[in-house]
C-alpha cells in the first residue's frame, strides 16, 4: 500500500493484511514461481505453485517457451524434408520421431519397406530408448542428489551416440529413417560395434542398480512419492512408463506392432506401486528389454536392400545415378519437386521412450503435407502435473517431475 506521498503507511499495510487473511480464511499462502529457468525442469517450463508453508495447494504449469512452429513448417516443406524437422521435436529420441513420420507417410503411399530396413529401424529405435532412458536416469538422479550415476550413464550414452554417428553420420539429429527405408545402407562393421555394446550393457545396468535400487537415500526420496491414480492418468492423456508404473500393461509395440516388432520377443514390465520408485524400476527393466531386442536384431538381421523399390519416391543409388539416365531423372525430380502422396489421412502411433508419440498426417495429393499434427507424449504427460503434485510437499516436486521424463521441445513443438 502506497499513499500519495509515496511512503507506505503501516496502517494501510495492516489493513491490507487483514483483508488478505479474511479472503484466504486465515491461511497465509505464497505463490512461488518455479522456472522457466529452473535446472530440474530440463528445458523451459514454468510452474506456478501456490504454497501453504511447504505444502502445494495449487499448481499451474505454463508452457510454450520453446514453441518453434514446427507444425507450420511441415506444411511448407516437401515430404522428405519433413524428416529433419522431426529430429528437433524430441531431441532425446530423434529416431522414434523419424520412425513415426516415415511410417505415416509410407502408409499413405502404400509402400512396403524391405525387412533389412525394418529390422534396422527396430534396432536403432531401441538404441534411442536406451539413449533417452540413460539421460533420464542420470539427470533424475542428479536432481535428487546422487551425482555419480550421471557419469556412469553418460559413459554408455556416448557409445550409443557413436553408433548413431556410425550409421547416419550424425550423433543427435540423425534423420536416418527416410520415407521408404533408410538414408544409407548400414555401415561396414556395425555388427562388431553393436555386439561390443550389447555384451556389456546388462552388467552396466547392474552397476546403476547397485548405486540406486537399494540406496536408502534414493528409496527414501522416491518411494511413495508422486502418486496419481490410474483413472486420472487415463483421463488426462498420460502414456508410457507412467501408466506401466500403475500396473496397466500398455505398449504400442505390443498392441499395434509396427516395423515388424511382432517378430521380437520382449516383455512389457509393469508394477503396482505407482510412485517415482516404481517408474524408476520400470525404466531400468525397459533398458534390459531393449538390450534383448537389440541382441535379437543383431543375430537375426535379414539381408537385402535398405530401401523400398519405389523409383519415384526413394532416391536412386548413387552409382546408378551416375550411369543410368532414368535414375538421374528420378533423382532430379525427387530433389527439385518431391513426390506426390495420395490424398487421405492417417494417425500413426509409435512407442517412444516417453510414451505414445502420434503423427496425424493429412495429405491433399500434393508434394507437401497438408497438415501434420504431432501428438507428443510429453504434452499429455505434463497436463497431469497439477493432479500429481497438488497436496504434496515442495521438496517432492523435483522427484515427481523427474519421474515423468518430459522433454520441453516435444511439449511445445
Amino acid at each position, binding site marked *: 500500500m502506497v499513499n500519495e506521498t509515496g511512503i507506505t503507511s503501516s496502517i494501510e499495510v495492516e489493513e491490507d493484511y487483514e483483508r488478505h487473511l479474511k479472503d484466504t480464511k486465515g491461511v497465509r499462502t505464497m505463490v512461488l514461481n518455479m522456472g522457466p529457468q529452473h535446472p530440474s525442469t530440463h528445458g523451459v517450463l514454468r510452474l506456478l505453485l501456490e504454497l501453504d508453508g511447504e505444502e502445494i495447494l495449487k499448481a499451474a504449469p505454463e508452457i510454450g517457451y520453446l514453441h518453434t512452429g514446427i507444425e507450420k513448417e511441415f506444411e511448407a516443406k516437401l515430404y522428405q524434408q519433413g524428416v529433419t524437422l522431426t529430429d528437433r521435436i524430441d531431441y532425446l529420441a530423434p529416431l522414434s520421431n523419424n520412425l513415426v513420420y516415415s511410417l505415416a507417410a509410407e502408409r499413405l503411399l502404400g509402400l512396403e519397406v524391405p525387412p533389412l530396413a525394418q529390422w534396422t529401424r527396430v534396432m536403432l529405435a531401441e538404441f534411442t530408448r536406451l539413449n533417452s532412458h540413460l539421460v533420464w536416469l542420470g539427470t533424475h538422479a542428479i536432481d535428487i542428489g546422487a551425482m555419480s550415476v550421471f557419469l556412469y550413464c553418460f559413459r554408455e550414452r556416448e557409445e550409443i551416440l557413436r553408433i548413431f554417428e556410425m550409421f547416419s553420420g550424425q550423433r543427435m539429429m540423425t534423420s536416418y529413417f527416410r520415407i521408404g527405408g533408410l538414408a544409407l545402407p548400414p555401415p561396414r562393421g556395425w555388427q562388431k560395434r553393436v555386439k561390443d555394446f550389447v555384451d556389456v550393457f546388462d552388467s552396466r545396468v547392474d552397476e546403476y542398480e547397485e548405486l540406486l535400487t537399494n540406496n536408502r537415500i534414493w528409496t527414501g526420496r522416491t518411494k511413495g512419492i508422486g502418486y496419481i491414480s490410474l483413472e486420472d492418468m487415463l483421463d488426462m492423456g498420460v502414456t508410457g512408463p507412467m501408466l506401466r508404473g500403475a500396473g*496397466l500393461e500398455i505398449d504400442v509395440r505390443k*498392441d499395434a506392432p509396427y516395423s515388424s516388432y511382432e517378430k521380437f520377443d520382449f516383455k512389457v514390465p509393469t508394477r503396482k506401486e505407482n510412485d517415482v520408485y516404481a517408474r524408476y524400476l520400470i525404466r531400468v527393466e525397459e533398458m534390459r528389454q531393449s538390450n534383448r531386442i537389440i541382441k535379437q536384431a543383431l543375430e537375426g538381421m535379414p539381408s537385402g536392400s535398405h530401401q523400398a523399390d519405389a523409383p519415384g519416391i526413394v532416391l536412386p543409388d548413387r552409382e546408378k545415378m551416375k550411369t543410368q539416365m532414368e535414375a538421374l531423372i528420378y533423382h532430379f525430380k525427387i530433389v527439385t519437386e518431391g513426390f506426390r502422396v495420395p490424398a487421405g489421412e492417417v*494417425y500413426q*502411433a509409435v512407442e517412444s521412450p516417453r510414451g505414445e508419440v*502420434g503423427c496425424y498426417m493429412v495429405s491433399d495429393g500434393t508434394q507437401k503435407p497438408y*497438415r501434420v499434427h504431432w501428438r507428443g507424449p510429453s504434452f499429455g504427460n505434463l497436463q497431469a502435473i497439477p493432479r500429481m503434485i497438488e497436496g504434496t510437499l515442495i521438496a517432492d516436486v523435483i522427484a515427481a517431475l523427474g519421474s515423468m521424463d518430459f522433454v520441453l521441445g516435444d511439449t511445445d*513443438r
Partner: protein
Amino acid sequence: MIPEDLQANPEVGALSDIVTAAKFEFGELTIEVAPESILIALGRVKRDLKYERLTSVAGVDRFPAEPRFEVVYHLQSIAKKSRLRVKARVPGTNPRIESVVTVYRGADWYERETFDLFGIVFLNHPDPRRIMMPEDWEGHPLRKDYPVTGMRY
C-alpha cells in the same frame, strides 16, 4: 453418407442418429458429426463404446473451402485395442464448438492449442487462454492464410 459396408459397424451403429458421414480408410475409421452434437457423440463413445482415452485434438484448416475448419478427435480403446477418429466441421466465420473437457479432461490443453493456433473457440472451456503463443499475439499461426515467414498478416 454412410457407406454400406459400415452400416453394421458398432461404432457407427451407436452414433447412427447423429453421424453425418463415415469412412474406413488406411485401416482407420472416421466418423463425422455436426459440431452441435460433438458432446453427445463423445459422451457415447466414452460410455457405451468404451474408448477410455482421448489421444489428441487437432485442427485442420480447409481454406478457402467452407465449412473451413475441421476439429479432429482421436480416441483409443485400451480394452478393444482399437482407435477411432471423430470429426466435426466448423464454419470459417465465427468458428466455435462445444468443449469436451467435461467428458475427457485431457482435452483441456489440446483444445487450448487448437484455439491458439487456429482460432476455433471452445465454448465452456475452463481455461480458454493461448498456450503456445504469447498472450498478446495477434492472429492464429496454423491458419492457411497466415504466412510461414514474416511477423503479421
